């Protein structure tokens, strides 16, 4: 994993060098934007990884297998999507959680539904979406996107 990280880091570094030649100003401001994003994300990242540790240590694997595992079938996909729809946060947070669920024996289909619903269905941000786009659109979009998340999960279950 560290090797992979180094490769990505080198790749991004190379892009920064190219950008630097085009416009040093914009490149510095890119670095600054990234640093600001990191500072803003840091409490959340720490919390998420701490939470994953807690999940691995305290939530019995059998519970995850029961609720999200292969035997559950559609039930598992629905639970995965439902968890994702309720919880809302940046995707950086969704991936470690999803990974630990997968390792604990959750169905890939359920995990995929969880991620898609996490990012694009937001029960918490629904009131905000309603004020911006109106009730009709917000409900339609969240409802149908939730169904799409389940569909994507189901399709992934067939591919993986």
């Amino acid at each position: 994993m560290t090797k992979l990280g180094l490769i990505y880091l080198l790749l991004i570094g190379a892009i920064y060098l190219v950008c630097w030649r085009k416009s040093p100003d914009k490149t510095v401001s890119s670095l600054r934007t990234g640093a600001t994003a990191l500072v803003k994300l840091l409490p959340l990242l720490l919390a998420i990884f701490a939470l994953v540790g807690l999940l691995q240590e305290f939530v019995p694997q059998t519970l995850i297998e029961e609720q999200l595992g292969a035997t559950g079938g559609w039930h598992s996909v629905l639970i995965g999507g439902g968890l994702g729809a309720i919880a809302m946060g940046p995707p950086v947070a969704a991936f470690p959680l999803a990974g630990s669920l997968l390792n604990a024996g959750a169905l890939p289909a359920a995990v995929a539904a969880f991620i898609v619903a996490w990012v694009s269905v937001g029960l918490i941000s629904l009131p905000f979406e309603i004020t911006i786009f109106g009730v009709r659109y917000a409900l339609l979009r969240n409802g149908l996107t939730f169904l799409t998340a389940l569909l994507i999960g189901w399709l992934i279950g067939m591919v993986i």
Partner: protein
Amino acid sequence: MKRGSQRPALTLGAWARAHWLPILTGILYLGALLYAPQRALRALTSGGTLLLSVALIIVAVIGLIGLLQVWISKDAVARLLGTDSGWMALLLSAFCGMILIGPPYLIFPLLQAIRKAGARWAVITTVLSTYAVKLQMIPLESSFLGWRFSLARSLLTVALAIPLGLLIEALMEKTPGTAGKSE
């Protein structure tokens, strides 16, 4: 619940809402420490080890976020998506959604501006769907879930985005009385 109307003057409630996850984690750890201190420490260690193992990837992703945010003009995107209304706009919105970065409370107002600039409902919906792909996050996603999973999820999300957008647009325009722009 209205985050848009939030003023800089932070109330305790607003602060708690913004940081609900760290707060929740803290409370859970407090409980775990009282209940089983050793297991709580073990949980913290395993979380920390996991974080360290992907720290470099996170730094790289953050670097990419900075690049995308500075070099891609959001105004240009809004102009482009607002004026075009054909298939190109749909494909373009699928692409824009993939590289769009920012929390929903920034994305929604941006899309509202695009909508007011004349964009179709299908364009708005497509952006919001492919917004779940996170091109810049794929390295991170695949390190946790594997390449096959990450690739399949991204491709399926993109493939379904435009059909879903068109479906929602059709439903929005079904009864002209209530549909249309909501200001």
